[in-house]
């Protein structure tokens, strides 16, 4: 172990490994937040070749205030649902960027290579911005297009997301 302090800089090593350097940034956890948030069911509807209800939306769920300078979210989350879909009811996942909950392949009758293009997608991101912790849901969804005079509804079921988060910043 070595501690060096000179010219306004402190360095601490463990053996040859640098552990602490005041010239670097360290993760500073400002808030520990736990809770849950419910995401409603999404239904995309198509009648014939006309989308009746389609999604190209970003929904924001405010989870409460955090430190005004916080911009990094670490931690874990757990997804539950009454109907199995996506990766619900599986286990705790680490948070780091965007979590893709659901996607499926397009099933347009006019696709030459069916099931190779994503048809519907739903993803979630925890983020800290301007003193607020929030969950962003990004969804793009269209129900299958076809030529018949019938209505087709595609459902992405409701889920509940439990979370245990360390919110902070590198300072």
């Amino acid at each position: 172990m070595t501690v060096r302090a000179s010219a306004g800089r402190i360095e601490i090593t463990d053996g040859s490994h640098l552990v602490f350097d005041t010239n670097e940034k360290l993760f500073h956890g400002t808030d520990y937040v736990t809770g849950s948030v419910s995401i409603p069911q999404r239904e995309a509807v198509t009648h014939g070749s006309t989308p009746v209800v389609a999604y190209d939306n970003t929904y924001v769920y405010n989870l409460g205030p955090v430190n005004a300078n916080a911009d990094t979210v670490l931690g874990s989350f757990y997804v539950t649902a009454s109907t199995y879909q996506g990766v619900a009811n599986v286990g705790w996942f680490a948070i780091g960027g965007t979590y893709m909950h659901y996607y499926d392949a397009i099933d347009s009758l006019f696709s030459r290579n069916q099931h190779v293009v994503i048809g519907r997608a739903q993803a979630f991101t925890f983020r800290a911005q301007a003193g607020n912790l929030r969950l962003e849901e990004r969804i793009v969804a269209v129900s299958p297009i076809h030529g018949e005079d019938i209505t087709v509804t595609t459902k992405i079921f409701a889920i509940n997301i439990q979370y245990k988060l360390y919110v902070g910043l590198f300072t």
Partner: protein
Amino acid sequence: MTLKLLITGSDFVAGNFNARNRYLRGSALGARFPISKGPTLSIVSYGGGNGVFRTPVVRYSVNGFVMQRTTGNDESTNHVDAGNFNAVVQLVKT
């Protein structure tokens, strides 16, 4: 008595800080992995001119690693634009 400061030939402990631990240190120099500060993936809606056959196009981009879809339903000729999204990250090491 609560330990506040311990300095020996092999240890440095100050409150919760212990030189034997490994901390996340933000540094571009010698960084080992990125930690995102927001989304790591973007989903854009791509469709034909009439907007009917719109489908999601996904682009994952973190610290120079990019995976994205660039072709449409016919795969070979119908190139799509997945956007120019890049995740905001903090490069770290321990």
